[in-house]
């Protein structure tokens, strides 16, 4: 969770950040610390300012007064406390690093209990001398861990004039990052490991965002597919109802008995239903020719021998070929080889290479009664011819041989093949 530091080159930082700045003058200090506290006070945070020369308690208060409204009231209510270093040290100092760190954590929790959003502190380290330096840097390093995850923001001030190169490195190492004013411009110095983890975090964030984006794309793609499938399904339902209407209508006007019509309707609906079952089981991507013929010709099992090359059919071809096989089989059962006890049928399906490659399907009846060409083309025959020539763009020969009916259908494989990415749309038309 982030908090506004109030310092322009830094902007928002994580709660628990422990950072420092190098100053050369009282003006530098005021320029950094005034906006820091202004941001805290205006977002209802508790603030603690431990001052030292050259910006002592009174100067700090004066500097802040011009920028924050109701400062006296805020001091009276305890939202902000400004201490002189000696004053603060007398009250809280002298403990070991752990005890002082715990004091900050306790103060933060108290601030939260009192309704503040968090605690913002700053301390000037001008009081340090060479004898206390190492111990203090250890304490600073310890704070970095202690503050992690706390609703606390800590900014430490170091006098640039009093830090040699070693000291600067110590300070930078002990904080999350350091802020320095060089030639009139702000510069942020990050400890390499911090920088690395920040970079790692950023790249993790980027990766996460990319993943979210990819997942969102996936989901909206799936949603679009779903919508397309729904539209397709509604189209299919309408077409299926129209087909059933036509079948029923045609079967009833066929001129035969009511019993005949009933058997015809049942047979045709059964064949349609079987194809729908198979297609639905494969999400309307397609169905194998062998499985299709087995399903449609199941009622005549044993009397129809099959030698079938496997072809993965698109839904349109599956429906067409199923209706075709059904019409041939019922015709055979009524008038042809399957009407008596002796006859049989041989079904061959052979995919032949070539340009374009074709699938040749042949239906040969033998052993049935002597066949004669009917006077007028029936609905079944007409359906077979239209499916082959119109729907599947192939050709169809119906030979009423004396030995039995022979039907040969040749269709281009590209018309009947389901593709891997088969969009079910455009298939049943």
């Amino acid at each position, binding site marked *: 969770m982030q908090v506004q530091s109030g310092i322009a080159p830094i902007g928002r930082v994580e709660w628990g950040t422990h950072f420092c700045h190098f100053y050369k003058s009282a003006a530098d200090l005021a320029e950094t610390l005034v906006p820091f506290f202004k941001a805290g006070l205006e977002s209802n945070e508790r603030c603690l300012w431990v001052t030292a020369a050259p910006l002592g308690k009174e100067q700090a208060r004066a500097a802040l007064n011009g920028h924050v409204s109701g400062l006296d009231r805020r001091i009276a209510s305890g939202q902000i406390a400004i201490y002189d270093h000696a004053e603060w040290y007398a009250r809280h100092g002298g403990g070991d690093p752990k005890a002082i760190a715990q004091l900050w954590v306790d103060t933060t929790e108290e601030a939260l209990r009192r309704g503040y959003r968090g605690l913002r502190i700053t301390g000037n380290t001008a009081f340090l001398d060479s004898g206390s330096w190492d111990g203090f840097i250890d304490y600073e390093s310890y704070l970095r861990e202690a503050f992690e995850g706390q609703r606390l923001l800590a900014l430490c001030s170091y006098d640039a004039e009093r830090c040699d190169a070693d000291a600067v490195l110590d300070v930078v190492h002990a904080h999350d990052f350091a802020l320095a004013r060089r030639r009139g411009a702000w510069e942020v110095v990050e400890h390499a490991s911090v920088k690395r983890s920040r970079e790692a975090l950023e790249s993790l964030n980027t990766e996460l965002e990319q993943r979210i984006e990819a997942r969102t794309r996936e989901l909206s793609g799936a949603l679009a597919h779903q919508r397309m499938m729904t539209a397709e399904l509604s189209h299919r339902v309408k*077409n299926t109802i129209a087909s059933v209407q036509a079948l029923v209508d045609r079967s009833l006007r066929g001129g035969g008995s009511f019993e005949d019509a009933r058997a015809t309707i049942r047979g045709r609906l059964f064949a349609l239903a079987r194809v729908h079952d198979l297609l639905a089981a494969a999400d309307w991507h397609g169905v194998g020719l062998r499985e299709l013929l087995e399903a449609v010709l199941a009622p005549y099992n044993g009397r129809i021998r099959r030698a079938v090359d496997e072809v993965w059919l698109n839904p349109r071809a599956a429906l067409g070929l199923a209706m075709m096989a059904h019409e041939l089989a019922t015709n055979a059962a009524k008038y042809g080889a399957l009407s008596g006890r002796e006859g049989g049928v041989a079904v061959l399906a052979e995919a032949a290479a070539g340009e374009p490659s074709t699938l040749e399907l042949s239906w040969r009846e033998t052993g049935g009664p002597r066949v004669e060409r009917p006077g007028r083309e029936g609905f079944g025959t007409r359906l077979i011819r239209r499916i082959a020539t119109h729907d599947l763009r192939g050709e169809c020969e119906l030979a009423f041989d004396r030995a039995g009916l022979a039907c040969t259908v040749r269709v281009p494989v590209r018309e009947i093949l389901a593709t891997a990415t088969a969009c079910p749309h455009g298939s049943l038309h």
Partner: protein
Amino acid sequence: MAASIRQAPGRALLVEDELLVAVHVEELLEQVGYVRVAIAARVEEALVALAAGPDPTVAVLDVNLAGEQSWPVARECRRRGIPWVFVTGYLESHAAVPADLAGAVLLAKPLGREELAAGLARAAAASEPGGR
């Protein structure tokens, strides 16, 4: 009515995307006297068939063809002076005919032979000069 149609046999263009329905209507068309029936399943296919000629005597247009409507085919029929009828399924009876095609003969599925013959006769009468 059917008798008068039989006296003028001819070619029919049938635009229908559902094969079972197409075969059924093709049979009906033959029964009312259209000896040659061309079937198109899509708008594009129908327009190609019309452009290739010769002009059919009548056209039977299913309104909804796999997501597209057969209005462009109807306009082409009108331009060529070919009488046509629209056919809609009961699920699509709300199909809104565009203003420029209003007044066209609209038949409901399932089609019967008599309705089809009567509808075609009305369309033929309307396409005479002074008609539609």
